[in-house]
């Protein structure tokens, strides 16, 4: 029996319903075999309109997937003319916790990106920081950009674009004091999916700005999740997120000769669990197989 939440209706009729059922069973099987505490999946195929929502309104710690809404906030400031892509930002590693404004730093050993740390004291461009924030998940770049635009402006942007449901931005990243107090950024699979669909359809501010954001996400360097088991011709614009108890991937998959599909896979684990990226890759592969099968084979 499928224990998860409602599946959105599909225009593809009974064949799609059959596909949904099979896919939901497959995901449930993968979840059990992997030993994950929780898995959520949200999918929308631009080619067929097919949707799938598995546990998709469950809240998860966002980890670095919160950088996608922050990217949206940065481009909102660009769209409003408050920032230019080449506007310069002072690189300074000092931030204030949301807990009593206590200063903290982003430890360079906990940041995959050294380019931003190497520029401390100098300046980098907004578009460079946005690139590092997404492609190598630079925490320093993230907090610097958030410092320029302000978390409240990101929340406001999400509301204006009607994609605020399923996203809670409460602070910057690496704010350990806030984490200890249970103040964390949270997302649902459906929340992130709404943003990705908007981006993939070119509806975030303008087609040109949407494309620029997608270009940045295409530069992602951590590819052990959604893209790992896709065929060579697949291109994925995505953002991963990982802390000790969660591993996520959210992106748009471009395949030859068809429209893209948007996919969010959120997973929660015990601290010492292994095979987290492999599980995401397995789910991604199952979805790829289902979407690229001829509908007649499903029946």
């Amino acid at each position, binding site marked *: 029996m499928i224990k998860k939440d409602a599946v959105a209706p599909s225009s593809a009729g009974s064949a799609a319903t059959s596909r949904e059922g099979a896919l939901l069973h497959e995901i449930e099987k993968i979840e059990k075999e992997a030993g994950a505490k929780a898995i959520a999946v949200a999918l929308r195929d631009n080619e067929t309109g097919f949707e799938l929502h598995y546990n998709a309104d469950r809240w998860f710690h966002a980890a670095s997937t919160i950088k996608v809404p922050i990217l949206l906030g940065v481009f909102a400031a660009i769209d409003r003319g408050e*920032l230019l892509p080449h506007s*310069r930002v002072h690189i*300074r*590693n000092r931030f204030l916790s949301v807990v009593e404004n206590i200063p903290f730093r982003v430890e360079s050993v906990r940041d995959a990106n050294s380019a931003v740390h190497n520029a401390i*004291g100098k300046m980098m461009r*907004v578009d460079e920081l946005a690139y590092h924030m997404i492609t190598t998940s630079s925490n320093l770049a993230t907090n610097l950009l958030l410092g320029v635009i302000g978390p409240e402006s990101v929340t406001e942007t999400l509301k204006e674009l009607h994609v605020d449901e399923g996203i809670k931005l409460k602070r910057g990243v690496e704010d350990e004091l806030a984490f200890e107090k249970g103040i964390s950024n949270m997302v649902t699979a459906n929340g992130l999916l709404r943003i990705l669909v908007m981006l993939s359809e070119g509806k975030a501010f303008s087609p040109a700005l949407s494309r620029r954001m997608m270009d940045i996400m295409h530069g992602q360097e951590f590819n052990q999740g959604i893209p790992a088991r896709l065929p060579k011709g697949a291109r994925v614009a995505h953002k991963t997120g990982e802390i000790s108890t969660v591993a996520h991937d959210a992106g748009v998959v471009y395949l030859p000769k068809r429209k893209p599909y948007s996919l969010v896979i959120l997973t929660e684990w015990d601290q010492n669990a292994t095979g987290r990226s492999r599980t995401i890759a397995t789910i991604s592969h199952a979805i790829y197989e289902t979407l690229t099968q001829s509908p007649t084979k499903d029946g």
Partner: protein
Amino acid sequence: MTTARLVAEKMGESPNFPLRVVDGLTLPPEYRKALMPGEDWKDSNGVSHQLPRYFYEVPSWDSAMKIELASHFLLWEFIQVDVREAPPLRTFPRYVPCAITLLAVCLERFREAVGTLVHISANGGYRSPSHRFSKNATPHAWGTAANIYRIGDTYLDNRNAIERFSLIARETLPGIWTRPYGAPSGYAEDHLHLDLGYVLSVPRDVKS
């Protein structure tokens, strides 16, 4: 030192300084609004200080990259500001208080004392009273303060480095003020802040 400077000094003249002095009160409204020339501004203790009225006009980044304020300090190092500076002051011509030359001389002496490169951080030289960092009066808006984030290969991001170079600054530059190490407001933990106070410089040839 350049040949032109040596010749000028031999003749007992001031070396030729290429920047035009501008009375801030004569600038267009958007600049006056951002620079607040001659206006009073309160510090964090509620004490008023008069802001600079006279500025050097910097025509281009190219010129800022070439103009020496001291043997080892070029003008550009003092005017690096980021997106938090008021928009009119992020494009050229830029305006910098005339006291900036005094700061440069002090930093040159400091550099001699430490014997290596002294790096001023972005937003760490002159920044206007309209800069988003400028909540209360700060000597940065007088052009008389510098935030130094690195000396030679040493990053000033810890107590030991900041206090060591702070001591050298105070011993080398009589009357200099350095921000103590620490996290609260009024302290610094990721740079060495030094300043000459709220110094106003009025060049001899100004006509007001």
